[in-house]
């Protein structure tokens, strides 16, 4: 198991370093943007934004006028979401379905490694990788304000932001892993993972856009992660964490069961 996990870690390490560095650089660039604009002038500008754009930015647009609110927004910036998803989907779909498609899994399956151990290895790297991404961003929220004098930042509140983000990423990783465990082609698994994330994102967007669509909120993983609200409250609610964590646990367990029972025609 250790040998298999070590291979998976090595496989993911380089890509993960690139993702983490990109996230940190992007966070830095956004901080530079925040410093260069006249925050006071942003208010009227925000007011004239259409509701669709305001829904995209987040629930508490006014929070953007403070450094903590701006830093919190970076966590759910579309560019960041793409970055998280790229890691989660690529690694999950490549780890099982991709190896079946390439047939490389055959030389592993004939050795004393069980199928649950193989799924466990991929799941563990996904959990560690997403934790690293969130830890890097949380670290950034401590580094940039200190370097540029952006004022006091509640590190505990940002730890909650990262924690809630982690729960959501784990739920997306779990579903992507389940798709990968069931598929025999990396592309199909990735498609299913991306599809779930997109539908989930769209559900949250529509729920924010209009009260008519508010009923979609509980079904969207992204609705359980509102960084600006967490900063405003000074912490996350366990209720918000429990749903994505439950989705993550159930989908990962299902991935183990499905992969252990399925035919692998390689």
């Amino acid at each position: 198991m250790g040998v298999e996990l070590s291979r998976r870690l090595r496989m993911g390490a380089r890509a993960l370093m690139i993702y983490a560095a990109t996230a940190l650089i992007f966070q830095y660039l956004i901080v530079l943007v925040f410093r260069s604009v006249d925050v006071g002038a942003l208010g009227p500008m925000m007011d004239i934004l259409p509701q669709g754009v305001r829904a995209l930015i987040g629930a508490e647009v006014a929070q953007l006028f403070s450094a903590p609110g701006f830093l919190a927004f970076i966590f759910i910036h579309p560019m960041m979401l793409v970055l998280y998803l790229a890691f989660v989907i690529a690694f999950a779909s490549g780890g099982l379905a991709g190896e079946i498609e390439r047939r490389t899994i055959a030389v592993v399956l004939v050795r004393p490694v069980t199928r649950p151990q193989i799924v466990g290895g991929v799941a563990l790297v996904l959990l560690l990788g997403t934790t690293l991404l969130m830890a890097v961003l949380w670290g950034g929220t401590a580094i940039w304000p200190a370097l540029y004098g952006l004022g006091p930042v509640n590190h505990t509140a940002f730890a909650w932001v990262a924690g809630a983000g982690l729960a959501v990423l784990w739920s997306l990783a779990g579903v992507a892993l389940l798709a990968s465990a069931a598929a025999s082609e990396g592309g199909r698994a990735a498609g299913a993972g991306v599809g779930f994330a997109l539908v989930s994102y769209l559900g949250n967007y529509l729920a924010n856009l209009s009260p008519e669509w508010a009923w979609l909120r509980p079904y969207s993983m992204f609705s359980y992660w509102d960084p600006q609200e967490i900063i405003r409250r000074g912490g996350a609610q366990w209720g918000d964490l429990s749903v994505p964590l439950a989705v993550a646990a159930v989908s990962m367990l299902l991935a183990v069961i499905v992969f252990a029972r399925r035919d692998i025609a390689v």
Partner: protein
Amino acid sequence: MASAEAVIETARLTKWYGRRRGIEDVTFSVAPGEIFGFLGPNGAGKTTTIRCLLGFVRPQRGSSRLFGMPVQRIDRARLGVVPGELSLFERMTGAQLLDYLAGLTGRRPAERADLLARFALGAADLAKPIRQYSKGMKQKLGIVQALQHGPELLILDEPTEGLDPLMQQQFYLLLAELRARGRTVFLSSHLLWEVERTCDRVAIIRNGQLVALDRIDTLRARSIRRVEVHFAEPAEVGRFAPPGGVVVEEVQGARATLRVPVPQIGPTLAALAARRVLDLVWERPSLEDVFLGFYREGRDGR
């Protein structure tokens, strides 16, 4: 063979992929120290049988056991497998792959150095990423990874695919040595001469079903004989009345080629004795004749 002795044992193994038949009622056993050939053209069910043996796919019916146990319960370090259409981790170097797979197996790769020398894989080759390997080099590495830990049972699916003739010879020598050391080998191949040369027993699979299972010599003995008869004159060919079951395959002037089932050898000789025959050549059947015989039967039977 008593089942307790068998290294591989299958009973009525049946696997369908949706509505397409993979294999049906495949039953055979392989004794310790035996080199067992599994012969059939592409798509006949060889790989499906191997998938069932290794537990990659679940049969709808029947069972398979390795070392007397279901495959899920055996110590897989006792196995060495060269999968069909071998695919290796292309980003790794050859050395990294061998170390990784040896680590997974959990046994010291005691035979690696000897195998690398045999198959002419040097340190420089092993330092290269596998994506830079030729097909033949990948296949050699595939054989080394399967054997480096000294497994008791080898399951080889088209193992010489892509090897040059020199390396094929090396491989056959290696199989002979493994046999001498008491290792058991299950060799799946569509190369008749390869199976004929290396195996003790052979199973022939056609359309997912076993059509023959025996020692190669026994199969040969049972197979249809080809007899070339040189009559004294062309008219004698027309006068020759072949017994039932004997087929006149070809006639060229006074020469005729007959296909004679073993039970018809006596009546054929009696019929020929009534004619003026100058020469008679009985060909020793090759495995190819046996194989083609089974496949011809299948085609004619459809």
